[in-house]
Protein backbone atom coordinates (compact mmCIF):
# COMPACT_ATOMS: atom_id res chain seq x y z
CA UNK A 1 0.00 0.00 0.00
CA UNK A 2 2.68 2.49 0.94
CA UNK A 3 4.95 1.72 -1.96
CA UNK A 4 7.59 4.27 -2.78
CA UNK A 5 7.04 3.74 -6.50
CA UNK A 6 8.61 6.98 -7.67
CA UNK A 7 11.46 7.12 -5.18
CA UNK A 8 13.92 4.90 -6.96
CA UNK A 9 14.86 6.65 -10.20
CA UNK A 10 18.06 7.77 -11.81
CA UNK A 11 16.95 11.13 -13.11
CA UNK A 12 18.55 14.48 -12.45
CA UNK A 13 15.79 15.27 -9.96
CA UNK A 14 16.37 12.08 -7.99
CA UNK A 15 19.98 13.10 -7.52
CA UNK A 16 19.11 16.48 -5.98
CA UNK A 17 19.45 17.00 -2.26
CA UNK A 18 16.10 16.36 -0.49
CA UNK A 19 16.45 19.65 1.36
CA UNK A 20 16.73 21.57 -1.93
CA UNK A 21 13.73 19.73 -3.35
CA UNK A 22 11.59 20.47 -0.30
CA UNK A 23 12.43 24.20 -0.38
CA UNK A 24 11.93 24.40 -4.17
CA UNK A 25 8.54 22.68 -3.99
CA UNK A 26 7.35 24.93 -1.17
CA UNK A 27 8.33 28.09 -3.08
CA UNK A 28 6.87 26.95 -6.38
CA UNK A 29 3.66 25.51 -4.82
CA UNK A 30 2.85 28.74 -3.04
CA UNK A 31 3.64 30.87 -6.09
CA UNK A 32 1.25 28.70 -8.10
CA UNK A 33 -1.46 28.68 -5.44
CA UNK A 34 -1.41 32.47 -5.15
CA UNK A 35 -1.49 33.07 -8.90
CA UNK A 36 -4.77 34.54 -10.09
CA UNK A 37 -4.06 34.97 -13.77
CA UNK A 38 -5.10 32.31 -16.26
CA UNK A 39 -2.11 32.77 -18.58
CA UNK A 40 0.44 32.74 -15.77
CA UNK A 41 -1.26 29.67 -14.29
CA UNK A 42 -0.61 27.99 -17.61
CA UNK A 43 3.08 28.85 -17.37
CA UNK A 44 3.17 27.21 -13.91
CA UNK A 45 1.54 24.13 -15.38
CA UNK A 46 4.23 23.98 -18.09
CA UNK A 47 6.92 24.17 -15.40
CA UNK A 48 5.30 21.34 -13.46
CA UNK A 49 4.90 19.16 -16.55
CA UNK A 50 8.52 19.88 -17.40
CA UNK A 51 9.55 18.72 -13.90
CA UNK A 52 7.50 15.52 -14.26
CA UNK A 53 9.24 14.82 -17.57
CA UNK A 54 12.63 15.57 -16.03
CA UNK A 55 11.95 13.06 -13.26
CA UNK A 56 11.28 10.40 -15.88
CA UNK A 57 8.17 9.07 -14.14
CA UNK A 58 5.65 6.67 -15.61
CA UNK A 59 2.91 8.92 -17.07
CA UNK A 60 0.07 6.52 -16.31
CA UNK A 61 1.09 6.24 -12.65
CA UNK A 62 1.35 10.02 -12.39
CA UNK A 63 -2.13 10.54 -13.86
CA UNK A 64 -3.54 7.84 -11.55
CA UNK A 65 -2.41 9.92 -8.60
CA UNK A 66 -4.83 12.64 -9.70
CA UNK A 67 -7.84 10.43 -8.94
CA UNK A 68 -8.66 11.96 -5.53
CA UNK A 69 -8.46 15.41 -7.12
CA UNK A 70 -10.70 14.38 -10.00
CA UNK A 71 -13.80 14.00 -7.78
CA UNK A 72 -13.33 17.44 -6.31
CA UNK A 73 -12.85 18.99 -9.75
CA UNK A 74 -15.95 17.21 -11.02
CA UNK A 75 -17.95 18.69 -8.15
CA UNK A 76 -16.82 22.27 -8.72
CA UNK A 77 -17.39 21.97 -12.48
CA UNK A 78 -20.99 21.00 -11.73
CA UNK A 79 -21.66 23.61 -9.05
CA UNK A 80 -19.52 26.69 -9.76
CA UNK A 81 -20.61 27.66 -13.29
CA UNK A 82 -24.24 27.59 -12.14
CA UNK A 83 -23.83 29.44 -8.87
CA UNK A 84 -21.01 31.91 -9.47
CA UNK A 85 -22.21 35.47 -10.03
CA UNK A 86 -21.14 37.11 -13.26
CA UNK A 87 -21.92 37.65 -16.93
CA UNK A 88 -24.28 35.05 -18.25
CA UNK A 89 -22.72 32.91 -20.91
CA UNK A 90 -25.52 30.48 -21.54
CA UNK A 91 -29.05 30.00 -20.27
CA UNK A 92 -31.33 26.99 -20.26
CA UNK A 93 -34.48 26.07 -18.33
CA UNK A 94 -33.92 28.78 -15.76
CA UNK A 95 -30.28 27.73 -15.15
CA UNK A 96 -27.60 30.18 -16.11
CA UNK A 97 -23.93 29.47 -16.67
CA UNK A 98 -21.63 32.39 -15.95
CA UNK A 99 -18.38 33.20 -17.73
CA UNK A 100 -16.59 33.98 -14.46
CA UNK A 101 -17.67 30.63 -13.04
CA UNK A 102 -16.22 28.77 -16.00
CA UNK A 103 -12.97 30.77 -15.93
CA UNK A 104 -12.59 30.10 -12.20
CA UNK A 105 -13.12 26.38 -12.80
CA UNK A 106 -10.43 26.37 -15.49
CA UNK A 107 -8.04 28.27 -13.21
CA UNK A 108 -8.62 25.93 -10.27
CA UNK A 109 -8.19 22.90 -12.49
CA UNK A 110 -4.90 24.11 -13.94
CA UNK A 111 -3.51 25.29 -10.61
CA UNK A 112 -4.45 22.21 -8.63
CA UNK A 113 -3.05 19.82 -11.22
CA UNK A 114 0.16 21.87 -11.45
CA UNK A 115 0.70 21.85 -7.69
CA UNK A 116 0.11 18.10 -7.47
CA UNK A 117 2.42 17.48 -10.43
CA UNK A 118 5.26 19.40 -8.93
CA UNK A 119 4.72 17.69 -5.58
CA UNK A 120 4.92 14.35 -7.37
CA UNK A 121 8.02 15.37 -9.30
CA UNK A 122 9.92 16.84 -6.37
CA UNK A 123 8.67 15.18 -3.16
CA UNK A 124 7.21 11.81 -4.15
CA UNK A 125 10.51 11.06 -5.86
CA UNK A 126 12.29 10.65 -2.53
CA UNK A 127 12.03 7.93 0.08
CA UNK A 128 10.40 8.85 3.38
CA UNK A 129 13.83 8.37 4.94
CA UNK A 130 15.25 11.11 2.69
CA UNK A 131 12.19 13.27 3.35
CA UNK A 132 12.90 12.95 7.08
CA UNK A 133 16.50 13.88 6.50
CA UNK A 134 15.51 16.90 4.41
CA UNK A 135 12.97 18.07 6.98
CA UNK A 136 15.59 17.75 9.69
CA UNK A 137 17.98 19.92 7.72
CA UNK A 138 15.43 22.68 7.15
CA UNK A 139 15.13 22.76 10.95
CA UNK A 140 11.80 21.04 11.41
CA UNK A 141 11.81 20.01 15.12
CA UNK A 142 13.32 16.59 15.88
CA UNK A 143 10.12 15.31 17.42
CA UNK A 144 8.15 16.10 14.28
CA UNK A 145 10.71 14.41 12.00
CA UNK A 146 10.76 11.40 14.30
CA UNK A 147 6.94 11.20 14.20
CA UNK A 148 6.94 11.14 10.41
CA UNK A 149 9.64 8.47 10.18
CA UNK A 150 8.22 6.29 12.93
CA UNK A 151 4.62 6.53 11.71
CA UNK A 152 5.75 5.52 8.24
CA UNK A 153 7.79 2.63 9.64
CA UNK A 154 4.80 1.06 11.38
CA UNK A 155 2.12 1.65 8.73
CA UNK A 156 2.98 -1.55 6.89
CA UNK A 157 3.20 -3.53 10.14
CA UNK A 158 -0.25 -2.36 11.21
CA UNK A 159 -1.65 -2.83 7.74
CA UNK A 160 -0.57 -6.48 7.89
CA UNK A 161 -2.35 -6.82 11.23
CA UNK A 162 -5.48 -5.27 9.74
CA UNK A 163 -5.42 -7.67 6.81
CA UNK A 164 -5.05 -10.64 9.16
CA UNK A 165 -7.96 -9.45 11.32
CA UNK A 166 -10.19 -8.82 8.31
CA UNK A 167 -9.33 -12.20 6.80
CA UNK A 168 -10.11 -13.95 10.06
CA UNK A 169 -13.46 -12.13 10.21
CA UNK A 170 -14.25 -13.10 6.63
CA UNK A 171 -13.37 -16.74 7.30
CA UNK A 172 -16.02 -16.64 9.97
CA UNK A 173 -18.58 -15.50 7.46
CA UNK A 174 -18.35 -11.71 7.78
CA UNK A 175 -19.86 -10.13 4.69
CA UNK A 176 -19.65 -6.32 4.80
CA UNK A 177 -22.87 -4.54 3.89
CA UNK A 178 -24.99 -1.58 4.83
CA UNK A 179 -26.10 -2.67 8.27
CA UNK A 180 -25.37 -2.08 11.92
CA UNK A 181 -23.62 -5.42 12.30
CA UNK A 182 -21.07 -4.49 9.60
CA UNK A 183 -20.44 -1.06 11.13
CA UNK A 184 -19.97 -2.65 14.53
CA UNK A 185 -17.53 -5.19 13.12
CA UNK A 186 -15.47 -2.48 11.41
CA UNK A 187 -15.53 -0.45 14.62
CA UNK A 188 -14.14 -3.43 16.53
CA UNK A 189 -11.49 -4.00 13.84
CA UNK A 190 -10.43 -0.36 14.05
CA UNK A 191 -10.47 -0.58 17.85
CA UNK A 192 -8.31 -3.67 17.72
CA UNK A 193 -5.82 -1.80 15.52
CA UNK A 194 -5.55 0.95 18.12
CA UNK A 195 -5.08 -1.61 20.91
CA UNK A 196 -2.35 -3.46 19.01
CA UNK A 197 -0.71 -0.17 18.05
CA UNK A 198 -0.61 0.86 21.69
CA UNK A 199 0.81 -2.47 22.88
CA UNK A 200 3.39 -2.40 20.11
CA UNK A 201 4.35 1.14 21.06
CA UNK A 202 5.16 -0.11 24.57
CA UNK A 203 7.41 -2.84 23.19
CA UNK A 204 9.14 -0.51 20.73
CA UNK A 205 9.76 1.98 23.51
CA UNK A 206 11.23 -0.79 25.68
CA UNK A 207 13.44 -1.89 22.81
CA UNK A 208 14.67 1.68 22.42
CA UNK A 209 15.48 1.90 26.13
CA UNK A 210 17.39 -1.38 25.87
CA UNK A 211 19.57 0.15 23.22
CA UNK A 212 20.43 3.11 25.33
CA UNK A 213 17.95 5.67 23.92
CA UNK A 214 18.76 8.95 25.63
CA UNK A 215 16.12 11.22 24.15
CA UNK A 216 18.19 12.20 21.19
CA UNK A 217 17.72 11.33 17.57
CA UNK A 218 20.53 11.05 15.11
CA UNK A 219 20.55 11.16 11.34
CA UNK A 220 23.20 9.58 9.23
CA UNK A 221 22.67 10.53 5.59
CA UNK A 222 25.13 12.90 4.09
CA UNK A 223 24.57 14.74 0.87
CA UNK A 224 27.77 15.92 -0.75
CA UNK A 225 27.58 19.51 -1.95
CA UNK A 226 26.65 19.57 -5.59
CA UNK A 227 26.53 22.61 -7.82
CA UNK A 228 23.39 21.29 -9.49
CA UNK A 229 21.54 21.77 -6.19
CA UNK A 230 22.12 25.49 -5.97
CA UNK A 231 21.58 26.02 -9.71
CA UNK A 232 18.26 24.16 -9.53
CA UNK A 233 17.10 26.05 -6.45
CA UNK A 234 18.06 29.42 -7.97
CA UNK A 235 16.26 28.46 -11.18
CA UNK A 236 13.04 27.57 -9.38
CA UNK A 237 13.14 30.59 -7.07
CA UNK A 238 14.02 32.91 -9.95
CA UNK A 239 11.17 31.61 -12.09
CA UNK A 240 8.67 31.88 -9.22
CA UNK A 241 9.78 35.38 -8.30
CA UNK A 242 9.64 36.67 -11.88
CA UNK A 243 6.18 35.19 -12.42
CA UNK A 244 4.89 36.73 -9.18
CA UNK A 245 6.34 40.14 -10.16
CA UNK A 246 4.96 39.80 -13.66
CA UNK A 247 1.49 39.19 -12.25
CA UNK A 248 1.75 42.28 -10.05
CA UNK A 249 2.70 44.45 -13.05
CA UNK A 250 0.03 42.84 -15.21
CA UNK A 251 -2.65 43.73 -12.67
CA UNK A 252 -1.37 47.30 -12.58
CA UNK A 253 -1.88 47.58 -16.33
Amino acid at each position, binding site marked *: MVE*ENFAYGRSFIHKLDPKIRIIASIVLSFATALCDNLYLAMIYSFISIFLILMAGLNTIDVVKRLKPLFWFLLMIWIILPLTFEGDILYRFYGFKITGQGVVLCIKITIKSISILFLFTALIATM*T*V*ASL*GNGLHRIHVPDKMVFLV*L*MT*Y*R*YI*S*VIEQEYKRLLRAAKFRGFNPGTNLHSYKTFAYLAGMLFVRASL*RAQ*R*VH*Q*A*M*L*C*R*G*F*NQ*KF*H*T*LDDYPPNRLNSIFLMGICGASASLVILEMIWVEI
Partner: protein
Amino acid sequence: MIDNDSVIKLEDISFSYTGSDIQVLDHLNLEINKKDRIGLIAPNGSGKTTLLHTIMGLCKPDSGTIKVFGKILNNEKDFLQVRSKVGLLFQDSDDQLFCPTVLEDVAFGPLNLGFSRTEAIDIAEKTLKRLGIQLFEHSVTHKLSGGQKRLVALASVLAMEPEVLLLDEPTAGLDNKVKKKLIHILNSLDISYFVISHEFDFANAVTDKIYSMENGRILRDDEIHIHHHEHVHQHGKHPHIHK
Protein backbone atom coordinates in the same frame (compact mmCIF):
# COMPACT_ATOMS: atom_id res chain seq x y z
CA MET B 1 32.86 -11.49 48.52
CA ILE B 2 32.81 -10.49 44.91
CA ASP B 3 32.15 -13.22 42.47
CA ASN B 4 34.12 -12.30 39.37
CA ASP B 5 32.54 -14.89 37.17
CA SER B 6 28.96 -13.89 37.80
CA VAL B 7 27.42 -11.86 35.01
CA ILE B 8 23.77 -11.84 36.01
CA LYS B 9 22.38 -13.03 39.31
CA LEU B 10 18.70 -12.96 40.22
CA GLU B 11 17.84 -13.72 43.83
CA ASP B 12 14.37 -14.38 45.14
CA ILE B 13 12.64 -12.40 42.40
CA SER B 14 8.85 -12.21 42.59
CA PHE B 15 6.64 -10.45 40.10
CA SER B 16 2.94 -10.21 39.39
CA TYR B 17 1.07 -7.86 37.09
CA THR B 18 -0.93 -5.16 38.83
CA GLY B 19 -4.48 -6.28 39.43
CA SER B 20 -3.60 -9.97 39.03
CA ASP B 21 -3.07 -12.61 41.77
CA ILE B 22 -0.97 -14.86 39.59
CA GLN B 23 2.71 -14.88 40.53
CA VAL B 24 4.43 -14.77 37.14
CA LEU B 25 7.80 -15.02 38.87
CA ASP B 26 7.74 -16.68 42.29
CA HIS B 27 10.92 -16.35 44.36
CA LEU B 28 12.92 -17.08 41.25
CA ASN B 29 16.68 -17.61 41.30
CA LEU B 30 18.93 -17.55 38.28
CA GLU B 31 22.63 -17.13 37.75
CA ILE B 32 24.43 -16.60 34.48
CA ASN B 33 28.21 -16.77 34.62
CA LYS B 34 30.91 -15.87 32.15
CA LYS B 35 31.02 -18.16 29.11
CA ASP B 36 27.66 -19.65 30.08
CA ARG B 37 25.44 -20.69 27.21
CA ILE B 38 22.09 -21.48 28.75
CA GLY B 39 18.82 -22.43 27.10
CA LEU B 40 15.40 -22.07 28.70
CA ILE B 41 12.55 -24.19 27.44
CA ALA B 42 9.13 -23.56 28.87
CA PRO B 43 5.53 -23.42 27.72
CA ASN B 44 3.88 -20.19 26.57
CA GLY B 45 2.68 -17.94 29.32
CA SER B 46 5.17 -19.26 31.87
CA GLY B 47 6.75 -15.84 32.35
CA LYS B 48 9.83 -16.19 30.15
CA THR B 49 9.53 -12.79 28.53
CA THR B 50 8.74 -11.22 31.91
CA LEU B 51 11.94 -12.77 33.22
CA LEU B 52 14.04 -11.13 30.49
CA HIS B 53 12.28 -7.80 30.93
CA THR B 54 12.98 -7.96 34.66
CA ILE B 55 16.69 -8.41 34.00
CA MET B 56 16.61 -5.36 31.70
CA GLY B 57 14.69 -3.29 34.23
CA LEU B 58 11.63 -3.00 31.99
CA CYS B 59 9.48 -4.78 34.62
CA LYS B 60 9.98 -3.84 38.24
CA PRO B 61 9.91 -6.91 40.50
CA ASP B 62 7.84 -6.87 43.69
CA SER B 63 10.74 -8.30 45.67
CA GLY B 64 14.21 -9.77 45.27
CA THR B 65 17.53 -8.46 44.01
CA ILE B 66 19.03 -8.21 40.56
CA LYS B 67 22.80 -8.18 40.33
CA VAL B 68 24.59 -7.50 37.08
CA PHE B 69 28.39 -7.72 37.13
CA GLY B 70 28.21 -7.99 40.90
CA LYS B 71 26.36 -4.71 41.31
CA ILE B 72 22.85 -4.57 42.70
CA LEU B 73 20.48 -2.67 40.43
CA ASN B 74 17.78 -0.61 42.07
CA ASN B 75 16.64 2.28 39.95
CA GLU B 76 16.36 3.37 36.33
CA LYS B 77 19.80 4.99 36.47
CA ASP B 78 21.46 1.72 37.50
CA PHE B 79 19.71 -0.15 34.72
CA LEU B 80 20.63 2.51 32.18
CA GLN B 81 24.29 1.75 32.76
CA VAL B 82 24.00 -1.99 32.28
CA ARG B 83 21.66 -1.94 29.30
CA SER B 84 24.56 -1.37 26.94
CA LYS B 85 26.34 -4.43 28.35
CA VAL B 86 23.31 -6.69 28.33
CA GLY B 87 21.82 -7.08 24.85
CA LEU B 88 18.21 -8.21 24.52
CA LEU B 89 16.89 -9.59 21.24
CA PHE B 90 13.13 -9.08 21.19
CA GLN B 91 10.71 -11.75 20.09
CA ASP B 92 9.24 -9.55 17.33
CA SER B 93 11.95 -7.86 15.29
CA ASP B 94 9.48 -5.20 14.17
CA ASP B 95 9.50 -3.95 17.77
CA GLN B 96 13.23 -3.55 17.70
CA LEU B 97 13.87 -2.05 14.29
CA PHE B 98 12.25 1.35 14.06
CA CYS B 99 14.65 3.38 11.93
CA PRO B 100 14.06 3.95 8.22
CA THR B 101 17.16 2.11 6.99
CA VAL B 102 19.14 -0.87 8.21
CA LEU B 103 22.34 1.09 8.69
CA GLU B 104 20.61 3.72 10.83
CA ASP B 105 19.04 1.01 12.94
CA VAL B 106 22.32 -0.76 13.62
CA ALA B 107 24.09 2.55 14.28
CA PHE B 108 21.38 3.72 16.72
CA GLY B 109 22.90 1.89 19.71
CA PRO B 110 26.52 2.98 19.13
CA LEU B 111 25.35 6.61 18.64
CA ASN B 112 23.55 6.43 21.99
CA LEU B 113 26.74 5.12 23.56
CA GLY B 114 28.41 8.35 22.48
CA PHE B 115 30.34 7.23 19.42
CA SER B 116 30.73 9.81 16.67
CA ARG B 117 28.83 9.44 13.40
CA THR B 118 31.74 8.01 11.46
CA GLU B 119 32.63 5.62 14.28
CA ALA B 120 29.02 4.50 14.61
CA ILE B 121 28.72 3.89 10.87
CA ASP B 122 31.98 1.99 10.95
CA ILE B 123 30.80 -0.22 13.83
CA ALA B 124 27.46 -0.81 12.11
CA GLU B 125 29.10 -1.80 8.84
CA LYS B 126 31.51 -4.17 10.57
CA THR B 127 28.70 -5.81 12.53
CA LEU B 128 26.60 -6.30 9.41
CA LYS B 129 29.58 -7.81 7.66
CA ARG B 130 30.23 -10.13 10.57
CA LEU B 131 26.72 -11.51 10.23
CA GLY B 132 27.03 -11.70 6.46
CA ILE B 133 24.26 -9.20 5.77
CA GLN B 134 26.27 -6.17 4.61
CA LEU B 135 24.26 -6.15 1.39
CA PHE B 136 21.18 -4.92 3.28
CA GLU B 137 22.97 -1.85 4.62
CA HIS B 138 20.89 0.63 2.66
CA SER B 139 17.68 -1.40 2.54
CA VAL B 140 14.52 0.03 3.98
CA THR B 141 13.97 -1.94 7.18
CA HIS B 142 10.28 -2.71 6.89
CA LYS B 143 10.66 -4.19 3.43
CA LEU B 144 12.98 -6.98 4.60
CA SER B 145 11.77 -10.55 5.09
CA GLY B 146 11.19 -11.97 8.58
CA GLY B 147 14.51 -13.80 8.59
CA GLN B 148 16.44 -10.77 7.36
CA LYS B 149 14.79 -8.60 10.02
CA ARG B 150 15.83 -11.07 12.74
CA LEU B 151 19.47 -10.94 11.61
CA VAL B 152 19.42 -7.13 11.41
CA ALA B 153 17.88 -6.99 14.90
CA LEU B 154 20.67 -9.24 16.14
CA ALA B 155 23.22 -6.98 14.44
CA SER B 156 21.65 -3.94 16.12
CA VAL B 157 22.13 -5.62 19.52
CA LEU B 158 25.64 -6.92 18.80
CA ALA B 159 26.74 -3.49 17.55
CA MET B 160 26.62 -2.31 21.16
CA GLU B 161 29.19 -5.00 22.01
CA PRO B 162 27.27 -6.46 24.92
CA GLU B 163 28.95 -8.81 27.38
CA VAL B 164 25.89 -10.98 27.65
CA LEU B 165 23.08 -11.62 25.21
CA LEU B 166 19.47 -12.45 26.07
CA LEU B 167 17.43 -13.91 23.23
CA ASP B 168 13.65 -14.18 23.34
CA GLU B 169 12.41 -16.91 20.99
CA PRO B 170 14.98 -16.09 18.29
CA THR B 171 13.70 -18.78 15.93
CA ALA B 172 10.01 -17.84 16.02
CA GLY B 173 8.69 -17.73 12.47
CA LEU B 174 12.03 -18.48 10.80
CA ASP B 175 12.67 -21.05 8.09
CA ASN B 176 15.36 -23.71 8.44
CA LYS B 177 17.92 -21.83 6.39
CA VAL B 178 17.89 -18.76 8.65
CA LYS B 179 17.74 -21.03 11.70
CA LYS B 180 20.95 -22.73 10.60
CA LYS B 181 22.58 -19.37 10.04
CA LEU B 182 21.50 -18.24 13.51
CA ILE B 183 22.93 -21.43 15.06
CA HIS B 184 26.20 -20.76 13.26
CA ILE B 185 26.32 -17.14 14.41
CA LEU B 186 25.51 -17.94 18.04
CA ASN B 187 28.09 -20.71 18.18
CA SER B 188 30.75 -18.33 16.91
CA LEU B 189 30.09 -15.73 19.64
CA ASP B 190 32.48 -15.63 22.55
CA ILE B 191 30.12 -13.93 24.99
CA SER B 192 27.70 -15.64 27.35
CA TYR B 193 24.09 -15.85 26.38
CA PHE B 194 20.71 -16.98 27.60
CA VAL B 195 18.26 -18.26 24.99
CA ILE B 196 14.54 -18.71 25.47
CA SER B 197 13.09 -21.09 22.93
CA HIS B 198 10.38 -23.63 22.53
CA GLU B 199 12.43 -25.57 20.00
CA PHE B 200 14.44 -28.23 21.71
CA ASP B 201 16.67 -28.96 18.70
CA PHE B 202 17.63 -25.33 18.34
CA ALA B 203 18.29 -24.82 22.05
CA ASN B 204 20.30 -28.02 22.11
CA ALA B 205 22.42 -26.89 19.17
CA VAL B 206 23.44 -23.54 20.65
CA THR B 207 23.65 -24.11 24.41
CA ASP B 208 25.49 -26.21 26.97
CA LYS B 209 22.80 -26.30 29.65
CA ILE B 210 19.05 -26.33 29.35
CA TYR B 211 16.77 -25.07 32.07
CA SER B 212 13.04 -25.10 32.33
CA MET B 213 10.52 -22.91 34.05
CA GLU B 214 7.47 -23.87 36.01
CA ASN B 215 5.18 -22.01 38.39
CA GLY B 216 7.37 -18.94 38.21
CA ARG B 217 10.60 -20.73 39.08
CA ILE B 218 13.59 -21.95 37.13
CA LEU B 219 14.27 -25.69 37.11
CA ARG B 220 17.94 -26.59 36.56
CA ASP B 221 18.95 -29.50 34.38
CA ASP B 222 19.69 -31.71 37.36
CA GLU B 223 16.12 -31.24 38.45
CA ILE B 224 14.52 -31.92 35.10
CA HIS B 225 14.66 -34.62 32.50
CA ILE B 226 13.81 -33.18 29.16
CA HIS B 227 13.29 -35.91 26.69
CA HIS B 228 11.88 -36.51 23.32
CA HIS B 229 9.59 -39.45 22.66
CA GLU B 230 6.14 -40.17 21.36
CA HIS B 231 3.25 -40.30 23.77
CA VAL B 232 -0.38 -41.12 23.33
CA HIS B 233 -1.13 -37.62 24.53
CA GLN B 234 -0.35 -34.73 22.24
CA HIS B 235 2.50 -33.31 24.30
CA GLY B 236 4.65 -36.22 23.16
CA LYS B 237 5.69 -34.34 20.07
CA HIS B 238 7.47 -31.74 22.14
CA PRO B 239 10.26 -32.11 24.62
CA HIS B 240 8.72 -32.07 28.03
CA ILE B 241 9.25 -32.79 31.68
CA HIS B 242 8.25 -35.68 33.88
CA LYS B 243 8.30 -35.15 37.59
